[in-house]
């Protein structure tokens, strides 16, 4: 894309946000999800440019989230409330870096209908996100520094593990997970 085209598309996106921001008099009642960014690169950090446009504090309106995301974030909140030595073996609570990555991961997933998410604390300050279908399971371990490792399991047997270097790499993992679910065809 030429530079002119890039900025035209950025400006268009900005105009769309303004147009949907209320009745034309004020721009405060923004109803757009915060994942839309007018920057040239979409990234999860766009949630910082919150719906309340002059606002600095970062929030995610729940109407921008699927039910599984809301429930998952509630569980994350409980895990983040754990005290020092929560595991009885001297572990610190989940770190802010792990918490930030976990939150960014959960809200970055644009699949509405996903199996419930489990959020598990990991000794040493990490967090593990887990999804499970009847035959497959996916674990994303977020280490205390915010890096991510994954494990795929099929019929109880590990089939693949590795590192995720970017948050958008979660999509193919989730596609693998849900492709094991039966597809219902209307009669």
């Amino acid at each position, binding site marked *: 894309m030429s530079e002119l085209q890039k900025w035209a598309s950025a400006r268009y996106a900005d105009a769309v946000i303004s147009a949907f921001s209320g009745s034309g008099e004020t721009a405060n009642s923004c109803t757009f999800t915060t994942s839309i960014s007018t920057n040239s690169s979409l990234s999860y950090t766009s949630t910082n440019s919150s719906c309340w446009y002059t606002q600095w504090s970062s929030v995610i309106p729940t109407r921008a989230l699927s039910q599984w995301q809301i429930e998952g974030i509630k*569980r994350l909140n409980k895990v983040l409330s*754990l005290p020092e030595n929560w*595991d*009885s073996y001297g572990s610190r609570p989940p770190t802010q870096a792990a918490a930030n990555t976990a939150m960014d991961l959960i809200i970055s997933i644009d699949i509405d209908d996903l199996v419930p998410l489990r*959020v*598990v604390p*990991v000794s*040493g300050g990490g967090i593990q996100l*887990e999804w499970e279908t009847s035959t497959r399971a996916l674990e994303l371990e977020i280490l205390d520094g915010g890096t991510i490792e994954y494990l795929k399991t099929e019929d109880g047997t590990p089939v693949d593990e590795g590192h995720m270097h970017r948050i958008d790499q979660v999509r193919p993992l989730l596609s693998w997970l849900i492709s094991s679910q039966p597809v219902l065809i209307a009669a």
Partner: protein
Amino acid sequence: MPERQDDPTIGKSERLWRRIHPFQINWNANPPIVSTGAFNTSDGLSVSIASETTLEALTQSHPEDSVVEFEVGFARSLGCLIFRDPTEEDPAHALVWGPKSRGRLSKTQMDSLRNAATVLIYRRPQAEN
């Protein structure tokens, strides 16, 4: 850091116990399933040598935790080292040392241990995660 060595005085049929926080168990499953996250630690996986302690001593100060058990021989078969690490609170304390950085187990090892472990005590929380 000194190289860790397996302790042959801990016999293969010896059982190892580990406390599990309620947030690390999926209580919606029947029976409840322990997460692999419960076997994920750095600086070795803390356990207690069953023959050198009691369940009461293990859980006395941690009444909300469940307890799992697995055999030394199984952990060794996965490639882990087992050695004593007595503490003031727990003279029977030992460590299961994995091949990764700072004694972490690989994900496959964690998964295998989780599948092989038996839950001796379930302590279901009031409000579940």
